[in-house]
């Protein structure tokens, strides 16, 4: 869980960086160039497969973990005050992950299926973004997806360090803070993209 989770986090950083190019507000010139580079670079092409394997393994691990853990308590408590000792999002990682998966399916249908298989014809990925984000419901789904991602990472990033045994008196407080900031900032930047496009602030 920890290794695949952190691997997905590294992907998020790259993905967020590339997409943030739309904020140059140059009609998508920089963004399309970056997307073009990603689409033609052999290393990135290979990493795309690794990424898909990463997601699938992460989901399989999540399923096995959840099923096993459910079996460890066959009779539930009549009264269980989980809020007294843990954050709600740490207890709902499976649900948050499922919401992310639902978002991913919609997301891949918008951008990945069309670019890789059906072809974009004359227009670019930037045009595709603009047309997708001209519908309010798409913008709302993207924002909801990013909220789920944010909470998933709020628990996930620091948890992954603990799982891998990287706990240290001096560094762990920093890891926790950095994980918290990361889990807010990255989904926030992502969420700004559909919002800006819908509002017409990116030409």
């Amino acid at each position, binding site marked *: *869980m920890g290794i695949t989770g952190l691997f997905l986090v590294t992907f998020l950083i790259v993905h967020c960086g590339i997409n943030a190019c739309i904020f140059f507000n140059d009609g998508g010139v920089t963004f399309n160039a970056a997307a073009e580079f990603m689409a033609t670079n052999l290393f990135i092409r290979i990493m795309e497969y690794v990424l898909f394997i990463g997601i699938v393994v992460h989901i399989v691990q999540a399923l096995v973990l959840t099923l096993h853990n459910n079996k*460890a308590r066959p009779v539930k408590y*009549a*009264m269980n005050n989980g809020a007294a*000792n843990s954050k709600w999002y*740490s207890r709902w990682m499976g649900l948050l992950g499922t919401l992310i998966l639902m978002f991913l399916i919609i997301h891949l249908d918008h951008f990945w299926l069309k670019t890789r298989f059906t072809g974009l014809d004359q227009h670019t990925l930037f045009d595709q973004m603009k047309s997708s984000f001209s519908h309010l419901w798409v913008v709302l789904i993207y924002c909801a997806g990013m909220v789920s991602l944010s909470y998933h990472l709020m*628990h996930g990033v620091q948890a992954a360090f603990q*799982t*891998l*045994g990287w706990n240290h008196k001096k560094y762990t407080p920093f890891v926790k803070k950095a994980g918290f900031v990361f889990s807010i900032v990255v989904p926030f930047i992502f969420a700004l993209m559909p919002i800006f496009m819908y509002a017409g602030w990116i030409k």
Partner: protein
Amino acid sequence: MNLTLKVWRQNSAKEAGNLVSYPVKDISEDMSFLEMFDVLNEQLITKGEVPIAFDHDCREGICGMCSMFINGRPHGPKQGVTTCQLHMRSFKDGDTIVVEPWRAKAFPVVKDLVVDRSAFDRIIASGGFISVNAGNAQDANNIPIPKPDADKAFDAAACIGCGACVATCKNSSAMLFVSAKVSQLALLPQGKIEATMRVKEMVAQMDKEGFGNCSNTGACEIECPKGISLENIARMNREFYSANITE
């Protein structure tokens, strides 16, 4: 004070159980939670009913026997105490208090609030020991141990094996308990010799007993009456990975 207790009654491991309501009257605020149960049991005996079975022994917070899940939390609403150290002043007159046994597949109910925690004993027996002769008391001073290591080992050794960590964990994971026992020995030179074998065996036994997997919610650390830290779980993870890489 007058209270309503809702207590889990279950005759044996094989029979089904349910929550039964009992009113208790004239409880002193200075009584411990267990003393309040003694009063209730006296009432039941006088009425000719079967008293409620619950585990207890030292009644001073050192043996770990007093397992009770009170109002959704192990050992009740206070942090850093066992049930025997919980006083009735932590509740209000007229309160309804729900009391359940520890719930985990690895801790089957024996009767009422009593659960079988011998899974912990089997984990200890699988590796929670050292096989060298450590000598007599004064011999210990012949092996200098850095103060920070001694302190960490001592903190880990404070675990009383109560099982609150398992009881509260949403996954019924025993990681806090096992990591305390692994850490306590791994930090000291006497325990280093068998360190690799120990962590592997104890983790294997823990899995065999049917405990769940840790997902780092941190609930155990909050509820542990002895303040065992999550650092121990990270240490055990490190020990476990390196033991599996080196062999």
